[in-house]
């Protein structure tokens, strides 16, 4: 790296706050030229302008344009209608990818939420709760790339190196190439995702759990309910809204999965998911049309979550 880029970075860090202050002062100066009544009308738009310029250029326009590109050829030169989609639907690789993404959606989401809930309920009953929770939350701090390295090492074929095969050996199981055979390899990748995200589910569900009155639980126990009944008849129903929030978040993580698969298998051995297929179409096959079609399909699958979030947001606003 040359000195220039380093200097540029420093200039940006110092310059951005300075520019922000100047921009704020400039808006007030511009508004002075308006009649007093017009000022509150124009001011909000001046305050929103920088953010929406960025969002417009780097998020909204690109997303809309991706839809357009998905209807054009591989070099984005001619319109080809629905050809990219038809091609995709005709490829076994595409359906393999969908199968894997559905596996991620089903198993990653369910196991992460259920396990997070169990850990939240169990840690709630011990004094060393904080320690256990911090420990389980740590993987959230590291990158998927580092997690990929960590788990490639865990899954190493040599039982003298790979922890999982060493543990399997202790139980009398032959060393396994965990990442070679479908569908087992996708499950092994999903385990990495679970390891990273249970901490997130646990912390949110645990916060929800603290909101349930202990008197209610005690009353149920006094009435003779056992711990399983307390869990399924009281805790789960009362936590249902929180579980829904955690679930939708993890659904999005599942649908966007890219890094884990890319680092650990590179999409080989039938482990491709929508995220890796997108990358391969664009950069391995150099087909912007097909890659855009994959991106559009991903966006469509996320729209139900988007609508759910908007509904939840409106309900929250109504109670503000």
């Amino acid at each position, binding site marked *: *790296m040359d000195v220039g*880029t380093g200097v540029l*970075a420093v200039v940006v860090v110092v310059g951005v*706050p300075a520019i*922000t202050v100047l*921009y704020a002062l400039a808006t*007030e100066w511009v508004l002075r030229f308006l009649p007093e009544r017009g000022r509150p009308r124009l001011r*909000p738009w001046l*305050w*929103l302008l*920088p*953010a929406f310029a*960025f*969002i417009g*250029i*780097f*998020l*909204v326009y*690109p997303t809309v*344009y*991706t839809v357009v*590109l998905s209807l054009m050829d591989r070099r984005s030169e001619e319109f080809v209608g629905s050809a990219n989609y038809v091609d995709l639907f005709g490829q076994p690789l595409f359906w393999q990818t969908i199968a894997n993404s559905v596996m991620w959606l089903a198993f990653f989401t369910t196991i992460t939420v259920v396990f997070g809930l169990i850990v939240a309920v169990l*840690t709630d*009953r*011990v004094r*060393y709760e904080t*320690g*256990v929770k911090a*420990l*389980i939350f*740590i993987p959230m701090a*590291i*990158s*998927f*790339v580092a997690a*990929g390295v*960590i788990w490639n*090492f865990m899954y190493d074929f*040599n039982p003298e*190196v790979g*922890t999982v095969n060493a543990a399997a050996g202790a139980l009398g199981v032959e060393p396994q190439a965990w990442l070679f055979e479908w569908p087992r390899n996708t499950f092994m990748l999903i385990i990495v995702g679970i390891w990273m995200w249970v901490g997130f589910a646990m*912390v*949110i569900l645990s*916060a929800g759990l603290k909101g349930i009155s*202990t008197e209610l639980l*005690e009353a149920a126990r*006094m009435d003779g309910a056992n711990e399983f009944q307390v869990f399924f008849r009281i805790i789960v129903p009362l936590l249902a809204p929180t579980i829904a929030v955690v679930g939708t978040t993890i659904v999005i993580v599942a649908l966007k999965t890219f*890094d884990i698969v*890319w*680092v650990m298998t590179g999409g080989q051995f039938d482990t491709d998911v*929508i*995220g890796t297929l*997108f990358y391969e179409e*664009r950069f391995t096959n150099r087909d912007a049309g097909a890659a855009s079609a*994959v*991106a559009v399909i991903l966006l469509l699958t*996320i729209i139900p979550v988007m609508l759910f*979030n*908007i509904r939840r947001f*409106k309900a929250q606003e109504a109670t503000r």
Partner: protein
Amino acid sequence: MSAVTAPAGYTEVAGQPRHWYSRLPLHLVLVVVSLIWLVPTVALLVSSFRPPAEVNATGWWTAFQLPFNFTLDNYSSVLTRNNLGQSFLNSLFISIPATVIPVMVAAFAAYAFAWMDFPGRNALFVLVVALLVVPLQSALIPVLQITTAAGLTGTFPAVWLAHTGFGLPFAIFLLRNFFGALPRDMFESAYLDGASPTTAFFRLVLPLSVPAIASLVIFQFMWVWNDLLVALILVGGFPRVAPMTVTIANMVGTLGQNWHLLTAAAFVSMVLPLIVFFSLQRYFVRGMLAGSVKG
């Protein structure tokens, strides 16, 4: 929502004294789960300090037998020969501006959403909520076209701009919710004293919002620091500016089974997030929770 804090205290059922062993299964389960969660990271950490010949021949769990044989060679090797030292700096040069820009820009918009009246305010904010979950993939190809047309592909500004665009909806969402919860009286008395909205923003809103801004800064910084996809697409082919995630992902392909190097490299990339996690745990968890809605 201080999530990882002291337990609320589990109260025993009144009138039913329990023996410690009745809770033994509970403790056992928690200890086993904790161990399973810890082992992968410990395996990485221990292996990164072992000599190459040992890492690739004997399990990390044998490292604790006398005589101890640990080394720092793996770290000096990855930092100098595998370009990881450079990548570490690149990660910083990418992450810091890609955090500062969106947070400042978002604070402005969030203030307008929280405390100014204008037609279409709610509709526009619903758009922000909708954009929270838009996946990176559905915008990246045109973003690459834009940065290429501007001659920025393969430079830091390309990554800064992309992360600003992708990070803004969440940043606006979080700050608007926090600003909106500030007391209305405060603004009214400030305006009565002749303060302009600009003065109120810099003198009242920003200082009072330090906790929310801290959570947001940590979240955005970690998001960019740990990002692979955006960096791979915008600067992936340029090793001189590539961040650690890209460099390590490439090392996995080229170094294969050289575990002594891969484990050291992975740990270098984890050091900063782990320090942030342990020193700023409260803000970190809060930011992660609030940011979980982000696509």
